[in-house]
């Protein structure tokens, strides 16, 4: 395996999450309680000690509250001098008496303040940091950092070059898990470090003009299959998250090490580069215990996590960096259009399911091999959607990047009773029978040719009454092209002269949650030469087709996106379907014909609408 890069981040959070609300149950709230402050600092010291004992340097992200604590400041300076730890600044941990007195609010999520308050808090926190340390930080972060916030920080404090900027797939699922009380709607972002665009943090920059000036890292490295359909806070490189998920027995949690190792494995698909980060808030090592886990187990899990990273480092399989160092590495070794790829398997449920994630400045996409290589998640970053969040905007809490396809929220292949769910797949049709490739379970192999990242799927058999077809799918992500190519090739048929029909389709819509959005305003179209057929979406279930169409497209003004399909297959005909109120989707597709050894080729293309 190649080398993995690691960021270990600690924060002296003087009023840890949950400390007052959960473990302090039965007491009147008092965030100035001396015992609380003492314990919080002790946890920070413990975390630092465990990292250092295992030869790992850390990034100490000072919280606003900790800047008022002389011991916390002194510790940071000492560890910087002694261990090479970086002293950074986080917007987590804002709550303290000084903050509440000054801003007269219990709000603590920086991205949800109005823009003027964001700016005032940034100035306040950065200047306080400077007063403590005599310099401005190189790294910052929060659970989410919206584009306006990052742009302001970079303009006012250009020393900043790295930030913790999102929690991967922490959206409606996290909200539900927390009894609809955890307002971090952050779906649709990258799972690995990226350079945010100035327009939208979740959408990577495609060029220098779009570059926000920082390198973003995700808050935790999360299981790319378990988190997609489950609580993100159970399945990450956060030892106590594993305990929260009850993924342990008798104090043993091999899943944690499997998770770290599978991230190391991703170097094979990313030019030898792999990344991990561990960022555990002090609240997770509370002396009162957390969830069912007593303090002893919480401590042991963190100690074991640090020990495993330390062991990898000793073996030369891991390099620990501070956030600032990592940002420099990233700038030196990555290009804007270079994608992040992850061929990921289930390592927990024993299902042998396999998915492939792809992320570049134009899209984030997920291919599910257990559904024949269907595209099950698609975020059109090509639109670079400006979508401000926080008080005073139309999205106070919802920072998610909208999807076109999201099989968990919007059904996917299986629907109840009627209608369709979002997915991009194909049907093979013969003699009045049809088979959807979503029901053909297979596995993929990754390869690279020049700027193409290629997934070659194991061939699948499709059995009709009088014909068996062996078909192979090859999916190609062309770097910088903003499109995905699907090739379907018949390898073999029981009747070599047979001519089967193919229907390549995508069912899509838009949104950020499970609930439908208004589809009025969308425009469907088919085009060929000078001919252009358009239809305004009105929930009337209309369908149109065009022989030899050059494209089938949909423009979605609410997310500034134009999505289209194009094709080079034999006897091709483009089509679209409008959808209706019970099935608020649209379908784009191509039908055509396919013989043995023939290839039917389609592209899914993403563009900024205007």
């Amino acid at each position, binding site marked *: *395996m190649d080398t993995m890069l690691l960021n270990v981040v600690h924060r002296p959070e003087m009023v840890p999450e949950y400390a007052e609300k*959960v*473990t302090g*149950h*039965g007491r009147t709230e008092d965030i100035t309680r001396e015992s609380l402050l003492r314990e919080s600092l002790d946890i920070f010291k413990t975390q630092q000690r465990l990292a250092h004992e295992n030869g790992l340097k850390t990034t100490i992200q000072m919280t606003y509250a900790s800047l008022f604590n002389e011991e916390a400041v002194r510790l940071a300076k000492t560890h910087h001098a002694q261990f090479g730890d970086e002293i950074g600044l986080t917007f987590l941990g804002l709550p303290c008496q000084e903050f509440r007195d000054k801003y007269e609010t219990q709000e603590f999520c920086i991205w949800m303040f109005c823009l003027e308050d964001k700016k005032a808090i940034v100035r306040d926190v950065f200047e306080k940091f400077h007063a403590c340390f005599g310099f401005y930080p190189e790294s910052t972060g929060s659970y989410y950092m919206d584009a306006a916030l990052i742009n302001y920080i970079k303009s006012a404090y250009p020393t900043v070059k790295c930030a913790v900027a999102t929690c991967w797939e922490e959206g409606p*699922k996290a909200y*539900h*898990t*927390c*009894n609809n009380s955890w307002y971090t709607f952050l779906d649709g972002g990258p799972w690995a470090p990226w350079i945010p665009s100035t327009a939208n943090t979740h959408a990577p920059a495609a060029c220098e003009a779009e570059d926000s000036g920082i390198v973003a890292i995700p808050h935790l490295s999360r299981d790319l299959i378990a988190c997609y359909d*489950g*609580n993100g806070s159970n399945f990450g490189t956060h030892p106590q998250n594993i305990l*929260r998920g*009850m*993924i*342990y*027995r008798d104090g*043993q949690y*091999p*899943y944690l*090490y*499997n998770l770290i*190792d*599978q991230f*190391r*494995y991703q170097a094979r698909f990313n030019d030898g580069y792999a990344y991990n980060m561990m960022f555990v808030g002090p609240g997770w090592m509370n002396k*009162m*215990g*957390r*969830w*069912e*886990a*007593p303090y002893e187990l919480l401590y042991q899990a963190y100690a074991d996590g640090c020990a495993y990273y330390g062991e990898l480092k000793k073996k030369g399989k891991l390099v620990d960096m501070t956030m600032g160092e990592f940002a420099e590495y990233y700038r030196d070794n990555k290009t804007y259009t270079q994608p992040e790829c992850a*061929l990921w*398997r*289930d*390592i*927990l*449920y*024993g299902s*042998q399911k*396999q998915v492939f994630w792809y992320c570049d400045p134009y899209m984030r996409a997920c291919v599910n091999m257990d559904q024949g290589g269907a595209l099950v998640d698609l975020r059109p970053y090509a639109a670079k959607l400006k979508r401000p969040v926080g008080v005073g905007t139309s999205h106070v809490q919802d920072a998610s990047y909208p999807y076109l396809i999201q099989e968990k929220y919007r059904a996917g292949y299986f629907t109840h009773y009627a209608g369709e769910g979002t997915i991009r797949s194909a049907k093979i049709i013969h003699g009045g029978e049809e088979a959807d490739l979503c029901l053909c379970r297979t*596995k993929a*192999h990754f390869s690279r040719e020049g700027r193409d990242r290629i997934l070659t799927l194991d061939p699948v058999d499709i059995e009709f009454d009088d014909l068996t077809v062996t078909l192979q799918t090859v999916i190609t992500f062309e770097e910088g092209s903003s499109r995905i190519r699907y090739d379907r090739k018949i390898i073999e048929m029981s009747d070599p002269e047979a001519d089967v029909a193919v229907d390549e389709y995508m069912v899509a819509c838009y949104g950020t949650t499970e609930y439908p959005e208004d589809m009025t305003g969308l425009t469907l179209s088919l085009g060929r030469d000078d001919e252009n057929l358009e239809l305004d979406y009105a929930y009337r279930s209309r369908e149109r087709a065009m022989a030899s169409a050059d494209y089938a497209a949909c423009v979605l003004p609410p997310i500034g996106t134009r999505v289209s399909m194009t094709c080079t297959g034999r006897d091709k005909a483009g089509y679209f379907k409008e959808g209706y109120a019970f099935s608020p989707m649209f379908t784009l597709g191509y039908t055509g014909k396919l013989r043995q050894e023939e290839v039917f080729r389609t592209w899914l293309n993403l563009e900024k609408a205007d």
Partner: protein
Amino acid sequence: MAQSGKGRLNYRCPSCFMRDLDIDMFYDDDKGEYYCLRCQYTGTEADVLEKNETLRYRYRDMMKRYGEEDFERFDD
């Protein structure tokens, strides 16, 4: 009847956990049982521990240690 408290550890409702809901339970000292505020689950500490073990049925690979070359191996 006195107000309920948190109990010895911060147990969550095992029934809600199965539907991806983390709901802390409260402890009724008079009845000697934990109870969920959201659903109808009630149980002793022993019952909670038993249910917590039961719900791990879905983690079939929970205790398996993958080797470095196992991530694309599907032949077992």
